């Protein structure tokens, strides 16, 4: 509040410096928010597309898996899938979107074409389900990366928007009000001083 501050030239200089910094910060944060929003829109469109692909492919694989389960019996199915065909290694790093650290994933190698069981006691539906799942894994990784990026960008955009709004609607107007208050107070003091000097001069001249 303007009434709590010290109306001095030192305070005025300090406030003017803070206002300059706040205005520059506001501009930078606004630019960051716009940049992040642009990236977020690209990622969210990709997220939606990947989700649709993954859900339809998974539903198809699950259907084939259910058919295999009814054809083979639960015990045989569990035996066939007891050991995986292998383990897919994933390399994880971090990318940078407007100073937000987002995950970047790469699959090391692939299990394409490999089945974890022999063909003697298994049905062709299980082969189809397993192979489509193996084929879907890179897309699942892409979805994981994209969805996490969207989550992180959304949280960061919200945080940045709050900061921008606080600067725009609270801090900067308050500093401007305070600067105006100090300027007016200093001008008032100056006028008082001049009036006092004129009065003293009149008194001296009158003697």
């Amino acid at each position: 509040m303007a009434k709590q501050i010290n109306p001095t030239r030192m305070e005025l200089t300090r406030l003017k410096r803070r206002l300059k910094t706040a205005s520059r910060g506001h501009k930078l944060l606004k630019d960051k928010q716009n940049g992040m929003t642009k990236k977020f829109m690209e990622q969210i469109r990709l997220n939606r597309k990947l989700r649709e692909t993954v859900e339809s492919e998974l539903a198809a694989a699950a259907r084939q898996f259910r058919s295999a389960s009814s054809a083979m019996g639960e015990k045989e199915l569990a035996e066939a899938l007891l050991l995986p065909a292998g383990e897919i290694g994933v390399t994880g790093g971090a990318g940078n979107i407007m100073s937000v650290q987002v995950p970047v994933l790469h699959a090391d190698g692939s299990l394409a074409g490999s089945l974890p069981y022999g063909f003697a006691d298994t049905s062709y539906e299980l082969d189809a389900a397993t192979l489509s799942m193996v084929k879907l894994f890179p897309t699942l990784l892409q979805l994981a990366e994209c969805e996490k990026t969207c989550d992180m960008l959304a949280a960061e955009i919200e945080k940045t928007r709050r900061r921008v709004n606080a600067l725009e609607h609270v801090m900067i107007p308050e500093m401007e009000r305070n600067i105006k208050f100090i300027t007016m107070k200093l001008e008032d003091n100056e006028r008082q001083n001049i009036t006092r000097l004129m009065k003293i001069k009149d008194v001296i001249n009158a003697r």
Partner: protein
Amino acid sequence: MTERKLKAAVIGSKAVTALYGAAGVAVFDTDDPSAVPKLISKLYGEGYGIIFTVESLYKGCENALKKYLTDPYPIVIPVPDETSDGSYSKERIAANIKKAIGSDLI
């Protein structure tokens, strides 16, 4: 952040996760949503950076999993199970859009 090797895991009921196991994803069976946050924390400590959790379990412990939203790893995402109709993933996308932009424009 330097690149590092990560492992992928799936948490869910046996019926849903068996298929993931065949694709080389480590399977952890549970039907209890309250056990999921603890399991995820343990798995991340063991080098599992990508953890797929079936939707029904993810919904049951969504609030406890919010702490993982601010760091790049672990990546915990819901995957559909036999009860999914696709609406939950759409809701999550819409919630993210609303959070970032203020309203669901897309």
